[in-house]
């Protein structure tokens, strides 16, 4: 009756179960697999070939934009919501001020070329729009959005004063080339901040267009582009720089892709609570090109020997440094900000964007900074910094007359000018996040934990080298319970 009983038997299944589970349970444990950073990198969708789609003729920039908007109707409006377009962020509370203020390049000063007020057309050659030549520029016209600056891939596009395309650009050829933004697109402005390659950031310069591994491991070894990390949705590009913002919104972090304990060595992972990844993994910046470290405006106007890395009559004297070893400070991602009209103490350096944080701040970690130090014009009576008009009629670079330049600049910037000016020292902090190295060149224990090491432990708030004295002990905030009634 059971003649045709199946060969299949639950016995075999049971046997395998009894064998497999203990084997798996007792298999030797390998070191745990660290998480996969590539999981955090967005998929690169191939760009559509636009060479057949862009027909022209394109007599000017807006005509290209109109063509783009035919298929991407929301693109310009999306761009117009961003700080890239507005040069101004969402209103935030600035320390020392009572109401939230929307800050950005549009109204801030720095200690390089100082401010854009009265100098729009030169500065706005890096604005992704067409025609911002004075304060009357309308930020509401979609056709003035410059799609090409970020999307052209021909390498033959250039912008000039007011953000207009340079005269001899073949707009049709450029428009046909559009695609996913490359390092070159972002770099066309960000690698040249301060008026030239490598001047401003120290960790961003033209050597990153095609970097060697040693210069940046992400871009050099893995061929990553800016927007792999600065993830972008609806043209809102993430990332933060305390030169123009003070909060952490839309910030990005190494831990977006990497684990917060990515090292096989427990001892090194023990550092990540107090030391930013950047501190060890960016041991030096300005690796290939020297970056500007000091700018003394007070020396301008003299007929001295000119050298773009040492002295220019129109700008003053400079110091540059290559292979820059950073300075280290606590930083919690936020910063203070000098706003036009704030009072200063001219006898001491004024920090224009002091990073916030300290040893007692659990969210702060020790970060590497390039600190750009300057000496710039201020009103000796009102005790606030001034914005000189740099170019054009009455501009300092044309007439070398400080009084006239700041008089004109103050009107544009809307600040008072007493007629008496002097020069006061300033500092600007540039947290470093690029030019990352892997283990081959990271800082080693002794770089910090040894006599004459890189860290000034006392200045950072430690009793002494934490390798001997112990690290900062930050206790969790104890919430006291209300006493029982």
């Amino acid at each position, binding site marked *: *009756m*059971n*003649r045709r*009983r*199946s*060969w299949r*038997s639950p*016995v*075999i299944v*049971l*046997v*395998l179960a*009894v*064998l497999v589970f*203990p*084997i798996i*349970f*007792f*298999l*030797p*444990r*390998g*070191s745990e697999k660290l998480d996969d950073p590539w999981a955090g990198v967005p998929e690169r969708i191939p760009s559509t070939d636009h060479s057949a789609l862009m027909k022209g003729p394109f007599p000017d920039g807006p005509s290209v934009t109109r063509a783009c908007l035919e298929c991407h109707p929301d693109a310009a409006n999306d761009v117009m919501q961003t700080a890239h377009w507005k040069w101004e962020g969402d209103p935030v509370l600035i320390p020392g001020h009572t109401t939230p203020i929307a800050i950005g390049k549009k109204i801030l000063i720095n200690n390089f070329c100082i401010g854009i007020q009265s100098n729009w057309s030169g500065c706005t050659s890096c604005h992704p729009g067409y025609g911002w030549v004075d304060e009357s520029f309308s930020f509401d016209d979609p056709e003035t959005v410059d799609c090409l600056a970020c999307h052209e891939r021909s390498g033959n596009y250039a912008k000039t004063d007011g953000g207009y395309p340079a005269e001899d650009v073949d707009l049709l050829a450029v428009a046909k080339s559009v695609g996913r933004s490359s390092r070159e697109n972002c770099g066309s402005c960000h690698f040249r901040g301060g008026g030239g390659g490598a001047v401003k950031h120290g960790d961003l310069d033209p050597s990153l267009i095609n970097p060697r591994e040693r210069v940046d491991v992400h871009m050099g070894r893995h061929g990553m582009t800016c927007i792999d990390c600065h993830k972008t949705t609806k043209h809102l590009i993430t990332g933060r720089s305390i030169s123009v913002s003070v909060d952490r919104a839309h910030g990005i972090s190494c831990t977006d892709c990497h684990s917060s304990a990515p090292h*096989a*060595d427990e*001892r090194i992972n023990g550092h990540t609570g107090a030391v930013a990844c950047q501190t060890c993994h960016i041991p030096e910046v300005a690796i290939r090109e020297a970056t500007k470290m000091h700018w003394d405006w007070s020396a301008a106007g003299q007929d001295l020997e000119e050298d773009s890395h040492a002295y220019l009559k129109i700008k003053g004297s400079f110091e540059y440094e290559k292979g820059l070893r950073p300075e280290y400070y606590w930083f919690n991602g936020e910063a203070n900000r000098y706003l036009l009209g704030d009072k200063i103490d001219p006898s001491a350096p004024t920090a224009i964007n002091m990073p916030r944080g300290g040893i007692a701040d659990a969210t702060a970690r020790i970060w590497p900074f390039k600190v750009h130090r300057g000496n710039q014009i201020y009103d000796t009576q009102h005790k606030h910094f001034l914005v000189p008009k740099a170019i054009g009629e009455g501009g300092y670079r044309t007439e070398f007359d400080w009084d006239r330049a700041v008089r004109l600049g103050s009107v544009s910037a809307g600040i008072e000018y007493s007629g008496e000016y002097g020069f006061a020292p300033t500092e600007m902090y540039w947290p470093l996040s690029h030019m990352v190295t892997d*283990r*081959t060149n990271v800082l*080693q*224990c*002794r*770089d910090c*934990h*040894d*006599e004459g090491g890189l860290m000034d432990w006392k200045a950072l708030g430690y009793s002494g080298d934490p*390798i001997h004295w112990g690290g900062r002990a930050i206790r969790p905030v104890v919430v006291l319970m209300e006493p029982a009634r």
Partner: protein
Amino acid sequence: MMRMAHITIVLLLVGVIVALAQSAELPSSIHPTFPLLDEVGANVLESDGPASAMRTCGQCHDTAYIESHGNHASAELREHVEPAGRNLEVGTAEWIRLTCERHVGGGPAAELNRALDDTTGWNWDESGIVELNCFLCHTPNPDNAARIEAIKQGNFRWASTATISNSDVVVKSPDGWSWNAEAFSSNGHVKDGLLPIKDPPDENCGLCHGLADDDPRLPVSLTSCGPEHWSTITTGQIFSSQRLSESAMNLAGKQSHTRAWDVHAERLVRCVDCHRSPNHPAYCENAPVSGPSHLRFKSRGMAIGEFLRRPSHDFSARSSAIDSTTGRPVDPKRRCESCHDSEGIHDWLPYWKRHMAVISCEVCHIAAISAPTHRQIDWTVVTPEGEPRILCRGIEGEKAPPTPDRLIDGFQPVLLPRPELGGGQRLLPHNMISSWYWAEGDGATPVPTEMVRDAYLSEGAYHPEILAALDQNDDRQLDESELRLDTASKVESVKRRLESLGLDNPRIVGEVRPYGIHHSVTRGEPVTRDCRLCHAGDSRLSAPFTLASYMPGGVVPGLVGDTDVGQSGELMMGDDGILLYEPSTSSAGLYVIGHDSQLWVTSIGIFAVILVLIGIFIHGGRRIQAHRRRETEEQQGRLKEIYIYTRYERFWHWLQAVAIIILILTGLELHIPDSFALFGFGNAVSIHSTLGFIVVINALFAAFYHFASGEIRQYLPEPKGFFSQAIHQARYYVRGIFRNERHPFEKTPERKLNPLQQITYLVILNILLPLQVLTGVAIWGAQRWPDLVTGVGGLTILAPIHTLGAWMFAAFLLMHIYLTTTGHSPMANMRAMIAGWETIEEHGDNES
């Protein structure tokens, strides 16, 4: 106007002084200022004499205690300075000059051997003695070269003063040393900061002990192979925090070596952190408490002041040191296990405890040495410079010191057993250096190097007789292939030269000396996790180690007996006259699974399996032939379906079957990993252990089932008529089965086994299985009950028995599977064991 100028100058001067004072602020030393005293206790400023460290430091510290409680002063260093110089009879002055590169003074350098010294005519009153030189270790940036120069010149008294000549306190002029009065305060003390006294920085240790680099910013380089680089020239150890890729050495694959030379140096563990003073109060907290068992901490520790007065300088000795009086290993005080717990971080390693018991941490954590080191020292010849010929390992061209044009590829240390304090022994990486020298007389007294020089050289060139004997290509020079005593005639001519200098019975003696390796430690990736590195036929544990590229005079060197290192290998002659040391794991008392497989076990096993296979092929072939012949024949007997195997019977059978098959496969991988690799060695170990226990547990459950249900009777032969039945069954297998006869015994649920099966299972269940279980559990237990397992002979006995048993199991398994095809139909038995139901022939007249 003048007044203003004066004020300005004064202000400027003040500024300069303040600036100078600030720049003179040296790294923290809280040592107070002190006067420098000479050997009679007078301030050197007044006496203009040499500073005495013993007197100067003796103002506060008990320098006599320090000298007598330390192995630095008492060290009797002779090896390498002269060939096997232990028996070398030299006067104290000569000894001092020979050993000063590595001896800090004091001890034998200060206690004069008057009897011998008188014969040398050394004027001790003029030279002074070499007292213990505190400055060499405790001042930053000591001038060791000046110290050595002073001693070599016989200016012993000034050696300590020369040591501090980098400090501006003392100035050297052609007439000698003179004290710089500017460097002293009005109270006669050395000005603050000029001579900061500290615990020794690594660099100072490195002055005598080998390359120890304190400044990570200066690229590490090995520029000389003098005795001052002792541990580097004898073992290639380098203690530096610098990455190999950043060193100034021409290393093979340099850019990929991003690890530091030593992980401890990298992690800021300094020499003195491990080689520390034993009575240092900072370490008292960890000191074991002797006394009442309820005490966990000894609160009456030594006060810091007491320690500073009498700091013991008996620093933790190297762990391979041996006490010369007792012949037992010296307590090293500090070793890896003093700080590190291997448990928990070696989860990936099966049997980690067993591994830790037989190999030292260094075996894996110093798997390779990246620097070159000495391999062979040939004192039987001298170079034109009058030096012995030295050949190195780990560097292209075998020559030292390394030059940028020669690639350094390092070497893999040889693993030699070293006794442990608690008994037993563990393998430790070593370098072995072979040396040959001329000895004279009846004993093994080495011929002084000077005399060998005289024999070879005359007036700065090779002696004509030497040239005539050694210069084979007549170019009046001795190249590398010529400057070696590799023929009897060469040996004979040098011997004649030595005899002509008055030596009696000169002859060549050779020795091989091992040097333990404890530094150049790595962590993380450079440490291997590849089991097969050791557990394979060409195991690292028995990798031949080159000792010499030629043997002077054809003399086979002996392994020196004055170390604690066990001799577990053999000297072998390789190709081209190379002398090799071949370590043997079995001589070291080890049975390394996967490496030490016994040939006889494997041979017997394979023989048994092949025998069974041949039987199966013949028997099976004949069955197929017989089957084809009778294809049309009628089926004999009636058939019926019976439920023969219960669910549980089938379950335990198949569990055992699968487990044993995988056990045999994994066992095969463990046994011969070079020929059979299926699971990966580490996985195979783990699977094998797990399945072993499953088999044991399953067998126990099955035994319980059989006893409880009475099914055990199946396995018990009935004594009555058993032999005739067995013969009956055997006759069936050799004859009846081919004639399609019926099975002699009907298979019933009450009687499933025929007599031959019964007897086979009796043997397997009572002998083979218990043997496998017992040996298997013992091997597994080698790390849990090491003493017990050693008591029954250890792995050396257990492993071959277990392996042989496994082969027998494999042979049985093949036969068992074949015999399952002898049922009513070839698959009938198999189907029964899977589904429970079997088709069998019904015997009308049941014979059983």
